[in-house]
């Protein structure tokens, strides 16, 4: 065997080997790339994503009154009886319940905690009024029919639509895209800055920088390592998600393809943008700390780990400037066909200038890194 020919291809292969061997030997790889996303999945399933829609509690005094049956019969409410009127008021004031119905002889009071509940209080009041006109308790369905009849006089119709069952399984399937974004962020940070800083510290960067084709080989190594890592961790996330009951039925294959492509572009943008950091960070411990803390803040602040709809409005809007958040948002919409894949791709145009900027910055920094490696 003679000769050394470092190239992008040899580096790429070495990067894939590195991931395979490390995953076999290094428990921390499994913890980061399999354990961590699975924990987030479990948290998501039991905390972020609820089960069936919750019933709204409505307080009643006295607790054994007949009106409770009328309100529960409307659907969507859960009667909570009180034997002590003071306690009912206290729970209203403390926000434990938002609406309460108090019977005082022939009259009924509908109490509500703040103006945002006024509309619902009025509807409940109307329903109770109709019920009383019928003579409480009204026969089943009578209140609804009476309300509909009155509304009909004014030309207003209540129409129930057969909505598709969404449920927690679908929500978990959507959240899977978020988690893939979370891992893409970490792979981009660790597979860029942290690996480069570590290579510089142990002298590998110097030897590569001094070899013909070494710079391309290192780039190939990082690409191979990152690609293999992301494939590995995404496979684990999807498998874990299915095991936890994610429902991907009805997902569009081309939408899923677009989601994967956008996530990969987002990962590449993070990877390229992290390279300049390795020019200023000297120790791999510092690099790992920056990636760990920075990644942690980003996953919770940009709508990756905590879904964007849970963020405050301003932050939710600003988060779209982060390439992985945009990729996750469009990927989620494309997955179940909310928007056609071509539209998702077209809407991802802001990724291009971000990628271009990160690419130029990354390329320039990489060249500086390589030339600096043989200077010192």
């Amino acid at each position, binding site marked *: 065997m003679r000769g050394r020919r470092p190239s992008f291809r040899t580096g790429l292969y070495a990067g894939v080997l590195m991931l395979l061997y490390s995953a076999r*030997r290094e428990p921390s790889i499994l913890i980061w790339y399999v354990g961590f996303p699975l924990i987030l999945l479990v948290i998501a399933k039991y905390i972020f994503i609820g089960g069936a829609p919750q019933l709204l509690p409505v307080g009643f005094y006295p607790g054994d009154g007949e009106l409770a049956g009328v309100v529960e019969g409307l659907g969507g409410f859960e009667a909570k009886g009180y034997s002590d009127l003071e306690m009912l008021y206290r729970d209203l004031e403390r926000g434990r319940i938002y609406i309460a119905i108090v019977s005082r002889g022939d009259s009924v009071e509908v109490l509500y905690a703040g103006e945002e509940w006024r509309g619902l209080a009025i509807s409940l009041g109307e329903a109770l009024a109709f019920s009383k006109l019928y003579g409480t308790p009204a026969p089943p369905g009578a209140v609804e029919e009476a309300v509909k009849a009155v509304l009909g006089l004014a030309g207003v119709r209540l129409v129930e639509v057969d909505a598709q069952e969404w449920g927690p399984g679908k929500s978990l399937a959507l959240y899977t895209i978020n988690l893939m974004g979370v891992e893409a962020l970490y792979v981009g940070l660790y597979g860029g800055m942290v690996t480069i800083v570590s290579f510089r510290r142990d002298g590998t960067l110097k030897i590569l920088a001094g070899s013909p*084709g070494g710079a391309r080989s290192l780039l190939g190594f990082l690409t191979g390592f990152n690609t293999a890592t992301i494939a590995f961790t995404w496979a684990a996330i999807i498998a874990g998600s299915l095991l936890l009951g994610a429902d991907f039925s009805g997902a569009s294959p081309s939408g899923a393809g677009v989601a994967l492509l956008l996530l990969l572009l987002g990962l590449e943008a993070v990877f390229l943008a992290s390279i300049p950091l390795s020019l200023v960070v000297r120790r791999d411990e510092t690099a790992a700390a920056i990636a760990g803390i920075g990644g942690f803040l980003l996953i919770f602040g940009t709508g990756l780990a905590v879904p964007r709809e849970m963020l405050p409005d301003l932050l939710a809007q600003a988060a779209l400037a982060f390439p992985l958040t945009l990729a996750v948002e469009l990927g989620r919409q494309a997955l179940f066909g909310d928007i056609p894949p071509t539209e998702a791709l077209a809407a991802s145009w802001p990724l291009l200038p971000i990628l271009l900027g990160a690419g130029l910055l990354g390329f320039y920094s990489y060249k500086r890194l390589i030339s600096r490696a043989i200077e010192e």
Partner: protein
Amino acid sequence: MGCTVEAVGLRKVYRAGFEAVKGVSLRVGAGETASLMGPNGSGKTTTLQMIAGVLRPTAGVVRVCGYDVWGDGWERARSLVGFAPQDPPFPRSLTGLEALEVLAGLFGVGRAGVRSDAGMLLEELGFPGLLGVRVSRMSGGQRRALTIVLALLGEPEVLVLDEPSSGLDPRARERLWGSISKLMRGRTVLFSTHDPGEAEEVSTATFIFHRGRVAAAGRPKELIERYAPRARVRVWSSSPPPPSLRARRSSGGFAEFEVESERDVAAIVAAYAEAGLPVERVELVRPGLREVFFEVTGEELEG
């Protein structure tokens, strides 16, 4: 077969302003084994790195097989050199074979090549069975052997080794050098060491480094003949030597005198006795590169 390595006027000033190498010139003929010998901080490693093409000199020229390492011929020159650094960069959680496959791949050697040659090379170097051992469980010497194998993969024309035997016991060191000379027969080897005995035994040419410069250069025997031709006797005593005697050096509890015959030794011991000075031990010293180092630099070589 073999390559000439030539450095002319090499200088290296680091960014902090520290001048590590101050104008080093050396020439190593094809097929020679050359040692760069000197204490820590004398500029050996910096010089080797500049020769291997992994550290850009501030000034000077390096040629390997006539190709300018830092000029037009850099690609050709660097592809001819295998470099084993002092601190091996292997991932600690991997086994020897896995680490070699990854790093050799990064440096452009295929996996098949590693699988076919690495075991044989390690066995030849005296470290059989290392391929299945995790790097984290290897001793410093074993990791160094792995680094040498990495440098040997790809059959370089020039092998550059930075303190290759550091951490090895004398037997392992002997085996290592026997193997390297066999594996690199006809090709050129440069290595650094702070052990004058190793430089004397192994190298065909020695460059004595002192404070960033080459203080002396030549074949070890020639250097010894030129700078320390006569035998020496070392007298260990708690007192300084009597004024009647002229010591070559006096430090660390002994005084050293040049002698030509046994009669000279007897005269020295008698002079101590006449002056009433205690003599703990008398030792005859065969002059070597350690003495050469002292003669050319005026300083003791530590260790």
